[in-house]
């Protein structure tokens, strides 16, 4: 059993025991262990329980463009391409855009978010508290701070709270947010997604309308029958496009699972906070004793 002799189990076990009594089995560990419980309780008490609101969506594939065939091994490549259409990117950009924040503002969401749902307050006159850093910045750079909330703040709120994730090589999109009010979260997320999608449709309708107007102009000047036929086909195509967009159905995405809330708050995670703080505080105690015992080695 030379292998076991080499490991020196007995001496290692003694060192382990020594380590335990020298650094763990101390009054400071007990004190800090108890302090960790109080600290954890304080954190949990001061935290606001937050629910997880999420919706599962899927890209509307008919929106994507068809891919050219390159032959050879490229077919395999385009099997990846087909799942990577740009709808998600466009939808994401719309969600975080200023124009959507402005539309959400007009729908009165600022009252819900910044005025606690008090509808008697004018939406454009909700007082905005300024941080010390903001005040200092305005003082040094010589610009004025706004006294009231604006769509810019709502845009920041959406950017910081709403998260959009698409699985790599996957098809599902998850839109989620954490909020203390379940009902607010569900309605806000639903409204936000529909507004972003509706905006995309409006833009495309305007685009098609502009193409039709310009094509009509060309048509009136055209003398060539082939060109006239081609222009008429363009008008037909764009008119059909407008017809397909003029409805209440979502354009970029469709819902697999509409917004719903977790049954219980997901954060703060009490169990994890207690365990983590306990480990951190015990670590502090061990490090204190360890540094004290080994200061000669360490310095």
């Amino acid at each position, binding site marked *: 059993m030379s292998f076991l002799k080499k490991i020196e189990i007995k001496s290692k076990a003694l060192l382990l025991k020594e380590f335990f009594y020298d650094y763990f089995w101390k009054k400071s560990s007990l004190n800090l262990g108890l302090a960790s419980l109080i600290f954890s309780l304080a954190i949990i008490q001061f935290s606001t329980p937050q629910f*997880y609101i999420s919706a599962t969506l899927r890209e509307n594939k008919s929106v994507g463009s068809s891919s050219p065939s390159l032959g050879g*091994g490229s077919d395999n490549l385009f099997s990846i391409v087909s799942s990577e259409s740009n709808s998600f990117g466009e939808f994401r950009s719309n969600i975080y855009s200023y124009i959507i924040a402005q539309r959400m503002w007009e729908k009165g969401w600022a009252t819900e978010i910044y005025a606690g749902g008090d509808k008697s307050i004018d939406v454009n006159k909700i007082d905005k508290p300024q941080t010390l850093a903001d005040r200092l910045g305005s003082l040094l750079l010589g610009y004025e701070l706004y006294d009231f909330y604006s769509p810019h703040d709502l845009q920041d709120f959406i950017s910081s709270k709403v998260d959009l994730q698409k699985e790599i090589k*996957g098809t599902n999109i998850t839109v989620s947010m954490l909020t203390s009010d379940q009902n607010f979260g569900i309605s806000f997320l639903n409204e936000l997604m529909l507004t972003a999608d509706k905006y995309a449709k409006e833009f495309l309708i305007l685009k098609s309308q502009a193409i039709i107007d310009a094509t009509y102009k060309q048509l009136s000047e055209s003398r060539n029958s082939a060109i006239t036929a081609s222009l008429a086909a363009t008008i037909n195509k764009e008119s059909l496009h407008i017809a397909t967009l003029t409805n209440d159905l979502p354009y970029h995405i469709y819902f697999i699972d509409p917004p719903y809330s977790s049954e219980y708050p997901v954060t703060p*995670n009490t169990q994890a906070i207690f365990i*983590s703080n306990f480990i951190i505080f015990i670590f502090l105690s061990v490090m204190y004793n*360890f540094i004290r015992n080994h200061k000669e080695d360490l310095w």
Partner: protein
Amino acid sequence: MVNGYFRYIDYGGSLEYYIFEIANYSFLVLLLCLCYKLRFININSLIVWTGIFFVPLVLNYFIFSPSLFPDQFQYALEVMSLKSKGISIDAIASQNAQFSLNLGYLGSISIPTNPVTFSTTFLGFAPIPNFMTVTSLAFANKFFLFVSFLGLKKFFFKDENILLLFFLIPSLLLYTSLALRETLIIICSVFFLLNMLKNNYIISLIFLLPLFVLKIQMFAFLALYFVGRLVFRANNSLYMLVFFLGFILLASILLQDVILQIINYYRLGFAAENMDLGDGIYGYYAFSLYGEELAESLELTSILEVVFASIAGLPKLLLMPYPNTWSSIFYPIQFFESIFLILLYWSISVRNNLLKNKEFIYLSVILLLSCMLYSLLVFNVGTFVRYRFSLFFPFIIALYYLATLERGNKTKLLK
């Protein structure tokens, strides 16, 4: 372990995030203190590793957003899904990638062949208290890196302090501080090469096989090394090395169509991934719109063209990111680091008179061949700086081990 305690919530850089991750850090430092007490490591290692373990805390959410390396989220989601539900996330589960081995009465073993599932299954064994955020996996990576340090110290290197210096290379600090599989790739490659140099072929094979799932190209490079050393004995004579290289060339010509198809497929894939047309049109989508001409220009049509293109691309691979492409703080660091690593490779070999050592020549030839193959695929700088490092680092460690063996032999002769 199927445990509802682990659930993925995006804590961002909140207080809760720091509580969970500082707990992980504390746990690892406690482990370090224990190792010091048990005399597994010296005081220098204790101090340096305390610093190394701290790096994950200052990267994600602090120095940069974890979205800079978006793959991290997939790894984090997968490990939490495996721990809480015992199944993969939808995107991975739908691929149904696993290898099952029926052992008769003993039941069957299923090994995941999806690299994300495989690496997260392994990383999930790290005894850290929390798997709550993307940074938790970075701590799991650090744990396994430390275990590999202990292994290297115990079985291969006597001088702990010099070994410690290799673990302070910036790219190693960076990639092992993220929720990626680079750490596992590097560890397997390092132990494979060192065991090969020690003629432990069976143990080498044990470290080689996981690379088939983790990183197929690393597996291919090292399998080439394995075959050349075991079958052709290319490390013992220059004639055998030339014969081995001739064999590779002949096989490449005979299998030209298959090899070209694979190389062109990957060239196209990496080029498409990196294509950016502006206005938010990028990646595979951009390629699907305007990639036809690019595809034609990228296609390699003969092995000779492959050889020339790989030689021409070699300087770019070795020195990138070039100063004109520097777009983040990491790029200049990685540029100077790449020069430093090349000089280090050269310096170790010259100082230890390894230039005529057949083992060194064979090792360097394989490294060169691997770099040549990688140089054909360099389209995304960030990705290939990472790939290059996970290839180069194991060879540097192997070279240093070779140098210590050479020094040991000389000392024996002098006695």
